[in-house]
């Protein structure tokens, strides 16, 4: 058993990605008819490849149905993969340690998650201190030590233990509950924390408090974050790199400045343009995109965005665009960014 009181050591060195994902796929069958046959398939996550680097915050943005929450659940292994591989710090996740892998129990100790609904994710019948101490006890820490750690973490998230430790979730406000969830996620000294819309349900003044707290905790505990949100301003604030998802695929990934200042995918551009302007003098008159995101049950052929894309051409329907490398780790899956792709707006191939 891994001692539960220290963060696991860095094995692969700083150059190895903390978590490397290759070709992640998760389809959900829709059953119907007399014999419960599969009548359709929701392609929630369809061939997603990316890496989370050590010490960074990777933001994942996209609209509902784009697969960002399914991706988070796959990363946590709350769902089983249909295909693809996950490598955590050089070790295959879910493989036998004899063959250089890491078992799920050890993996989950190092990867923890914070959910959007702060109330539903806490046991209503446990005082918050016991909720936080629960996982360390499961992983072998004696009760007294586990409680001590819970109090220490409550202190770290800004809730005075003397005042809050014995309270139940319903006695706390939304912001306080989300702090408890964060403390619980940190109780096993994880290296990677998945934050699935952690501030979306909070009021603005509380949201800022929690964001500041997340920044502090990352520094203090040496964490790596995967931050999932639909709020582009929040993602820009907190992320080092940003991944844009559309209908189960990666549309664009890159450093935060490249994504926000030089977006290459038309979907990223539309998402950015959909943000309210915060300036009543510069109101828009035309929406940047029409229509809703299509259903992931039957995604369009070729580029999945082409049905809403203002630049779509016949060539877009033919093939799923490969990732075009724009330099500095910035990649976009759009034919307009790919030299020689056959799209009229694509850059020419250098001779």
């Amino acid at each position, binding site marked *: 058993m891994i001692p539960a009181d220290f963060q696991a050591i860095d094995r692969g060195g700083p150059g190895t990605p903390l978590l490397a994902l290759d070709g992640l796929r998760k389809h959900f069958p829709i059953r119907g008819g007399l014999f419960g046959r599969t009548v359709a398939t929701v392609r929630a996550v369809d061939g997603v490849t990316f890496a989370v680097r050590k010490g960074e915050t990777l933001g994942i943005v996209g*609209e*509902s149905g784009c697969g960002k929450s399914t991706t988070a659940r796959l990363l946590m292994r709350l769902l089983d993969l249909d295909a693809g591989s996950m490598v955590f710090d050089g070790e295959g996740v879910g493989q036998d340690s004899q063959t250089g892998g890491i078992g799920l129990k050890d993996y989950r100790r190092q990867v923890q998650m914070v959910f959007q609904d702060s109330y539903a994710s806490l046991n209503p019948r446990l005082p918050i201190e016991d909720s936080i101490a629960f996982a360390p006890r499961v992983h072998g820490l004696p009760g007294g030590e586990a409680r001590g750690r819970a109090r220490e973490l409550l202190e770290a998230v800004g809730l005075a233990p003397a005042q809050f430790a014995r309270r139940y979730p319903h006695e706390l*406000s*939304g*912001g306080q509950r989300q702090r408890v969830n964060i403390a619980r996620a940190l109780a096993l000294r994880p290296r990677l924390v998945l934050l699935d819309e952690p501030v979306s349900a909070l*009021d*603005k*003044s*509380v*949201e*800022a*408090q929690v*964001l*500041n707290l997340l*920044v502090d905790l990352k520094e203090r505990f040496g964490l790596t974050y995967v931050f999932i949100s*639909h*709020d*582009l*301003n*929040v993602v*820009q*604030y907190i992320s080092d790199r940003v991944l844009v998802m559309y209908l189960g695929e990666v549309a664009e990934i890159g450093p*935060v400045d490249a994504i*926000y200042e030089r977006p290459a995918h038309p979907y990223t551009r*539309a*998402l950015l343009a*959909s*943000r*309210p*302007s*915060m*300036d*009543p*003098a510069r*109101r*828009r*008159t*035309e*929406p*940047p*995109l*029409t*229509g*809703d*995101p299509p*259903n992931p049950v039957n995604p369009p052929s070729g580029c999945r965005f082409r049905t809403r894309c203002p630049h779509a051409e016949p060539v877009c329907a033919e093939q799923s665009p490969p990732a075009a490398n724009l330099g500095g780790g910035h990649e976009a899956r759009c034919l307009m960014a790919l030299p020689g792709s056959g799209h009229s707006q694509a850059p020419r191939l250098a001779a």
Partner: protein
Amino acid sequence: MSAAVAQQPLPTGNPLVRLRDLHVRFVSRDATVHAVNGVDLDLATGEVLCILGESGSGKSVTLRALMRLLPRTARVEGGIEVAGRDVQAMDEGELQDFRGGDVAMIFQEPMTALDPVFTIGQQIGETVRRHEKASRREADARALELLELVQIPSAKRRLAAYPHELSGGLRQRAMIAVALACRPKLLLADEPTTALDATVQIQVLLLLRKLQEQMGMGVVFVTHDLGVAGEIADRVAVMYAGKVVEEGPVGPLMGGPLHPYPRGLLGATVHPGMRGKRLTTIPGAPPSLERAPTGCPFAPRCPEVEEPACTAAVPAPRSPVPGRAARCIHVVAA
């Protein structure tokens, strides 16, 4: 724009909505919650007023009071006048004509606001038939016209669709169509875009603004999102602990709020270009409303608090320029 849905604006000078000293308390055996504590608001015909506030600020309760949609446990006091009629004095029959006729409401979650066992066409038609005594055929024609008005693609086919068959954005448009079916003078909107995706939210906001201009409606729009208010409002009223703490035209208010609460809110809202900087926060949490506030309700969280002036009495609204007002002792009245 079809003539059928066009509407003559009321003569100006007569406000469409006039709220005077509105108080709402929720009384139960265990506790009394003072949700709204003295709200005065006016809305002119053809104006969009955003009520901005965090959860528990009383913004939705104020909105519901305008249509008398509050539950029986609510004790409502004060003057509520809509389109020249006293809402408090209406009996049940008058209320039924009033709701959906003069005033309509759209909600945050169209899936729960629409009836799941009737088609969209039936739900629009029902409203038209109830209020205008129209025939079934006329009602169907109007339903189609309304679906086209709210820009639902292939409207004819969608008339026969049930709510669960539509996407979130289309459902919200369908609910707007139901609300506009009888050309209300006043549209009440309770966070109608909060549950939508960013690319759909902006479409619905632009649609609402366009319809409001075409039909000359007054709109009261409740939101917690400053950005949404910036896109749709003419005027903004910021609520805190059941009181309007600041009110003014949207541009100046968002450019430089007078009251420390909206100032803090603006500072705490994440803007582009704040990367690496620490976010300014408003410390603490809103007060419990089990007792009506006796001083400035924001005083415990305010960076500029001055004892005892702030806590001695609830500050009266002070107006430094015409059209703007804030309940703060630091604001110098003109």
